[in-house]
């Protein structure tokens, strides 16, 4: 093996290692989904998604979990607990509702919302407890 080929080999190994480290680093630091900048996977009325979960939770889980969902409905309640804003959407006469946990950036907007107002909100669905839960929510309209 000549001196030249040895140097070429060492350099290529170094390059491969660097690329590997770079890929690993970018993968490891892959950012979270930015809900504000992403278009929704599903746009839906609040009643429809609540009914879907009440009827068949397992099927609804498959359909909605980890999706960016844009829901439209009426505000039943707004609250702030430990500095975290929550908007509850639904119809006053039904049992089920949607709890939208606002993202950190949107938190302040809670003060501009009123009970009874129509709202469109976008967030990531994490499941169904007594309500459908959306997290990292951003107010659309």
């Amino acid at each position, binding site marked *: 093996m000549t001196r030249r080929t040895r140097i070429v080999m060492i350099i290529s190994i170094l390059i491969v290692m660097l690329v590997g480290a770079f890929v690993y680093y970018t993968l490891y630091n892959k950012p979270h989904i930015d809900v504000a900048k992403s278009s929704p996977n599903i746009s839906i009325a609040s009643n429809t998604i609540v009914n879907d979960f009440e009827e068949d939770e397992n099927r609804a*889980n498959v359909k909605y979990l980890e999706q960016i969902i844009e829901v439209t409905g009426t505000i039943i309640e707004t609250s702030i607990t430990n500095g*975290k804003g*929550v908007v509850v959407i639904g119809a006053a006469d039904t049992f089920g509702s949607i709890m939208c946990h606002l993202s950190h950036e949107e938190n302040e907007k809670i003060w501009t919302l009123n009970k009874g107002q129509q709202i469109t909100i976008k967030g990531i669905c994490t*499941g169904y*407890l007594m309500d459908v839960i959306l*997290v990292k929510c951003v107010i659309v309209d």
Partner: protein
Amino acid sequence: MKPIHILLYFFLSTTFTFGQSKYLTKQGYTSFFSSSPVEDIKADNHQVLSIIDSSTGAIAISILMKSFMFEKSLMQEHFNENYVESDKFPKATFKGEIQGLQDLNTGQQEVTIKGNITIHGVTQTIETKATVNKTDEAISVNGSFPVKVADFGIKIPAVVVNNIAEVVEVTFELDHKPYIK
């Protein structure tokens, strides 16, 4: 309808015998913390549902696995897909009793909580100390306990075995308010 729901509805629909006895939170907090030589991993969940019956001390908790938020999205992905398999097991639950809750006076005190915890489809009995703060308008329950990952059939691949602790610390802060239907 899953058993936990039947239980929850049962809790909520039973008639009140001694005035207000059901306390609830939909925004309870729980976190887990894994410390290893390579890295520390923490995840927070602010969407915990917990219901207490103050006349018996019974407590029922329901947690969505997908609501655990990690600093790195890759960790969150691995947690959901490889470890707790949250598509197959979307919830963790706890059903148990805060011993002697009905006899407590208002104020802060230490209690023992005993019951069954289900994670990743595996149920284990646990007993832990917790701090209860009882006032006229609220019952808060705070504490932490260790969870051995292997006890719940969660397998950690050999490649990352140094990144994840065998025993993770679970912390909870549940601030219950009277439940008004």
